[in-house]
Structure formats: C-alpha cells, structure tokens
C-alpha cells in the first residue's frame, strides 16, 4: 500500500521538471489539423458561390441552423439568394458539408468565433464566402 503512494509522488516530481506543453494562446497560436471543423465557408467558382440551393444542407442539419432562400439569375439558374448559418446553434458536426451534392461547402480552421452581440454570430452569405 505504501509503495504505490511513493511511486505516485515520484511521478509528479518527475513531471515538474518536464517542459510544459502549454501554448501561450494569444501570443502563440495553434495550427488546427487539416480536418478540424471550424467556421464554414462557401466555395466560389467563376466568381460566384458554387451553391445551387438544393436545400440538402438545411434538411440534414441536426441543429436546424442553416437558412437558405433561392433566387433566380439572368440565365434562369437557381442560386442561393440568402444563405445564413447561426453559429450559436451549430454543433460543428459537418453533416452539411457531407450532404452537399456540388461540394459547395467546406469547413475551415477558423476557430476564434467569439463576439459581443448575438446578431454577430449569424454568418450571412457575404461573410461565409471563401476568401
């Protein structure tokens, strides 16, 4: 009974002289792994969002946080006139990305999403477009 207690003390003492793994966050920034699920981005092709407004992502979204409204352009093609994601409700499951038939949506490494106002958590199409 005594030896395990002493061994425990030994381990903690050893750890005290190890190099800490802490990241000094605002000064040092982490690089998220490539498959990290952060803020969404709408992919762009031919200077337009690739989204064809099929409503698959709002359908599959378990948190019901995607709002899509269709519009029609000059060539009578359907496009997303309004595309909004409420980041306060999103659970970052990535289903929307999986569901998209035209690969118009992706998730980025962006994780600093804090804001002061609730409205600022609603990401409209302009804010979501891939930079």
């Amino acid at each position, binding site marked *: 009974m005594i030896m395990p*207690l002493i061994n*425990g003390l030994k381990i*903690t003492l050893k*750890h005290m002289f*190890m190099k*800490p793994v*802490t990241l000094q966050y605002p000064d040092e920034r982490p690089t998220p792994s490539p498959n990290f699920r952060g803020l969404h981005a709408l992919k762009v092709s031919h200077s337009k969002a690739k989204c064809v407004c099929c409503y698959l992502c709002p359908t599959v979204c378990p948190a019901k946080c995607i709002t899509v409204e269709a519009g029609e352009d000059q060539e009578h093609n359907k496009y997303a006139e309004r595309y909004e994601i409420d980041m306060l409700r999103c659970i970052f499951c990535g289903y929307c990305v999986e569901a998209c038939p035209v690969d118009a949506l992706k998730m980025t490494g962006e994780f600093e999403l804090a804001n002061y106002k609730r409205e600022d958590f609603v990401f409209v199409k302009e804010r979501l477009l891939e930079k």
Partner: protein
Amino acid sequence: MGYEILGLPMAYYIAMVLKVLVVFVFVLLTVAYATYAERKIIGHMQVRLGPMRTGWHGLLQPIADGVKLFFKEEIIPSKADKFAFLIAPLIALVPAFIGFAVIPFGETIEVGGYKIPLQIAAYYDTASGQVVDLNVGVLYILALASIGVYGIVLAGWSSNSKYSLLGGLRSSAQMISYELAAGLAIISVFMLSESLSLQKIVADQANGAWYAFKQPLAFILFFICSIAEINRTPFDLPEAETELVSGFCTEYSSMKYAMFFMAEYANMVTVCAVTTTLFLGGWHGPSFLPGWFWFIAKVYFLIFTCMWIRATYPRYRYDQLMRLGWKVFLPLTLINIVVTGIIVSL
C-alpha cells in the same frame, strides 16, 4: 534608553512589537505567495505552466486576486444567521495566525543590551540565562487548531444551506478524528523531550538527532493528520466540489470567502512550522547561516511537500477518510506511544 516601563527600556518593547509585526507580515506574505506557488507547482507537475500573464511569470497574481476579491459583491443569504455568518470567517482565520506566537523561529538576538529570543511569546531570563517561553506551547497550538473548526462549522450552519451544513459537519467529524491522532502522535515527542515547551523541544533536537529520525512513525503520522486537520487535499472533504458544491463556504463571497482561503493557507503555514519545530529540529541548522533561515527553509520545504501531495493524490471518500483516521492512524499512534514508552524506560 530614556523611558523605562516595569524596569525595562523602551527599546525592549519596541523590539517586542517589531517581532510581532515581522512575523505577521511574513506569514501574510507567505500565505499570499503560497497560493501562487501552489498554482505554479501543481501546474508544472501537470506539465502546464500555471499563471503567466500577471507580471513576470504571473508574480503579481496574488495581488491581482486580492484586488479582485475585494471588489466582488458581498452576498449574505437572506435566511442566514447574520452575526454567525459574518464572524465565522474570522474565527477560522485568527487561530491560524496566532498559533505563531509560540513557535521559536530563530536564535536569541541582542537589542540595546537586552537579549531577545526570536519567538513571540518568550523572554530572556537574565537570572538563569535561559529563554523562557510558554511551557505548554504545544497544547496552546492544539487548542487553537480546534478553535479553527468552530469557524467552519459556524459558517456551514449559519449559511442556512444544506450543502454548507454538511460540509461544516464533515469538517468537525474529520477534525475530531484526526486531531486525536495528531495529538497522540506528538505525545511520543513529549516522552522523549519530557517537556511541552517548544524551546526545550527544539533545544533537545539540536543536541541529539531530530525527532523525525528518532520518531519516524510519529513524524509521518503527525504530518498526515495535520494535513487532514487543515482540510487539504487529499482530505479536503468539507469542500468537496463534486458532492457539496463548495462545502461550508458555498454561500460565501468576496472578502469573506477570501478569509477562508487565507485561513486554509495560514493553517498550512502554521502546521508546517509546528512540524518543523517538533520534528525537524526547529531553527537549528549548520551555523554558517542564521537560524531563521533554516527555519524558513524547512517550513517552505514542508509547504512544498503539502502541494506535492495535493498534486499527486485524489481525494479520499468520506468513509475511507474516517476509517483511516480511526482504524489505522489512531492504533498506530497508540502502538508508537507504547513502544516509545518501553524504549524510554529501558
């Protein structure tokens, strides 16, 4: 040396007051920086850094914490017993500090031709050429330790909250069981030194081996029981967050909470000082450095050990704690007394 009071010069009294002030400020600073040291040490033991952003390596953290707590809102639950609620933190805090009055922390120094022992409640008897201190110093400390628990029980009861009450009750139960074992553990020290005076106990250890070597079992038991008595991890059941929210101090906020916090750390400093005095030879050490240095070094080493233990062990379950106290520690101390008695009488 103009004025004389009761045949003693003014400088003597000034030295007395200074002694109290120096010790008080020293304990206060140690308490403040023990909180910092604890966070740092446990941080590094968990391969983290601990506080880093307030001052260089977070050195201003205790001050920032103090300022923060000072400006927090004071909340007194509407159904609380106001008087008891307000006085409880003081009852917890004061005994932790005044225990230091009997602890010798250095050799005798000379001020204005008078020898002044570095122990608050002591004087130098010129007739016999000896330092006279409270001849029941250890009992005084044990008595104070049991007053501290009143603060905790009162805090738990007066908050008018079930969790607080349970935390307070746990604390008293724990206190009774461990204080008994701690008290019995030091009896073997009295048997060897044949005195309750801390001066005599320290002097004895300077002549022979430290009591930690003569009484290793008593030393370990006393230290563990002391940790249990001041409610530190792994025996911090009165404030077990997982079961009792925060135990006896659940309803406390702002400075009143800070007082409990300070009491916990002040108790830790006191307990380490008592352990140093009783078992580690007090202020004695190689003479190339002054006595108070060795005293502080030993106390700090024990404080570090407390933190080390906290970083290592998980909290005990309540029934395990009681079982350990009554069924393991108490018999062990009794056996130790019997064995010591046999050896002493041989």
